[in-house]
């Protein structure tokens, strides 16, 4: 990786060092060292089965790596339970969305703003007002105001995608790990989606996206990391990575011997 690539973005928020994960005989993630820098959109690309989602799972505590270290702002989060990692400000979405299907749109958003799990929340009435405002602002930003009383399971496909974004937005996460958030969106929804992400990045959010569509990748990335067969093959600015014929060959399946 070139020194120039390292200079894109601000401080390192999340750093995975030499992490590896094996499932049975398969090395899903093979000694990957990878940093997410503040204030930019980093895209993880690579063919299916490259280990992108597993890398997300390792970075958020959903899986414990066989080896290596994961640091959040320089501190190890390897031994933390994943709900605590979430509260540090690392939010994620899932490829299969994992919405709270039988709760209303509003409840889906409301519950992620609530830090305490008990009858009352810390902070008293002012915190309650702040949470309410957060819910309203989130519903407005994701275009779900009219759907607030609908159950998540009754939403249309694009609305579900936006609800999954709404949840991460309302959670107040500083780092968003998005697993194929744009797949299947029509051009109109896709534009709304992109502008939402860009606005969030301007407001200080850091984003890492797993994405297959190279047009989207080109349009949105400040930095690209290319994974194949569990290894990080290349990392850098979009122009360099996307114009690399060797990577294109891997991505489009013309794997060289």
């Amino acid at each position, binding site marked *: 990786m070139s020194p120039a690539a390292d200079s894109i973005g601000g401080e390192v928020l999340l750093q995975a060092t030499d992490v590896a994960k094996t499932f049975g005989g398969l090395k899903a993630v093979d000694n990957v060292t990878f940093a997410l820098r503040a204030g930019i959109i980093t895209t993880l690309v690579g063919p299916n089965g490259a280990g992108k989602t597993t890398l997300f799972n390792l970075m*958020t505590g*959903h899986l414990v790596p066989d080896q290596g270290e994961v640091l959040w702002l320089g501190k190890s989060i390897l031994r933390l*339970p*994943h*709900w*605590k990692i*979430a*509260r540090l400000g690392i*939010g*994620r979405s*899932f490829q299969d969305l*994992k*919405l*709270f*299907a*039988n*709760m*209303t749109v509003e*409840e*889906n958003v*409301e*519950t*992620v703003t*609530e*830090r*305490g*799990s*008990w*009858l*009352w*929340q810390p902070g008293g009435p002012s915190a309650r007002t702040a949470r309410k405002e957060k819910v309203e602002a989130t519903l407005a930003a994701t*275009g779900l*105001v*009219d*759907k*607030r*009383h*609908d*159950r*998540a399971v009754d939403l249309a496909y694009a609305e579900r995608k936006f609800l999954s974004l709404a*949840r991460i937005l309302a*959670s107040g996460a500083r780092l968003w790990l998005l697993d194929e958030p744009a797949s299947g969106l029509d051009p109109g929804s896709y534009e709304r989606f992109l502008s939402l992400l860009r606005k969030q990045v301007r407001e200080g959010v850091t984003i890492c996206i797993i994405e297959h569509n190279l047009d989207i990748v080109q349009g949105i990335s400040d930095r690209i990391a290319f994974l194949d067969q569990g290894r990080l093959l290349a990392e850098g600015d979009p122009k360099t990575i996307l114009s690399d014929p060797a990577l294109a060959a891997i991505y489009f399946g013309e794997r060289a011997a």
Partner: protein
Amino acid sequence: MWAYIVNLAVLISINAILAVTLNFILGYAGIFSIAHALFFGVGAYTATFVAMKLGADFLLSTAAGMAVGALISLALALPALRVRGEYFVAASLGLQMLAITVFTEWKSVTGGIGGLTNIPPARILGFEVTKPEHFLVLSLTCLVLIILIIRALVRSSFGRSLKAIRDDETAAWAYGKNVAIIKTTAVVLSSALCAVGGSLYAFYLSFINVESFTLDTSVQLMAMVIIGGTATLFGPVVGTILILLLPAGLSYLPYLPPTEIGSIQQIAYGLAMVLLMIYRPGGLWGFQEKPKAKEGGAP
């Protein structure tokens, strides 16, 4: 006839307490426990034990039943909730079987198969509840209080966390919910409130034995919840009324030999469950609590 109706009403209100507390974990938290009768039993035996040793103070006996129920459920929930979904069903089945053995064999406390007789009538704040009508007031008061407690719980952030866990446990973890503690708390609360039903039952009948706390009871409670409507406040009450009135109703039908009513009842339950699953998966009460009408039209 009046005595018959009052008796039925008391039994309905006691069973409704059990069903409502089961629904709290089954409907709102997605924890399919078939060990609910266990906590019914624990409440009944503990209340009886306290009543016989320390005097029949209803509040004291019930509080003891709730405390023991809570402690036992805590001890059971901590290991059992580590497993998900269908494995918890199997684990709770094991607990239920274990409990029956304990209820049957721990003769010094439970009286074994013969059970415990001559439980003194409940005293509450110095007033002795002997008349069935008075007991009905007591059991209905308990039911209403428990419904209000559960209503407050499910409408709070705790309730939203429970529903989030029910709908997707992985996502709940990923959004900072301490799933293990929340589920354990739900089971402990549900078991403690269920024990109130046990205490009422013991004082009402003044006789208890293991027969009332078997797997059949657990399954029947589950039927009440599912038929009435899971994750609704009043669904379990509706389910309880239906299931307890069914045998009474059947006995009025001509051409039915009284000896066959038991098996016809089973057929009716089974049929009702199948039809519900097909036509009303939300339960009978389910449709009443659908989300309110949409505000504003489609975009």
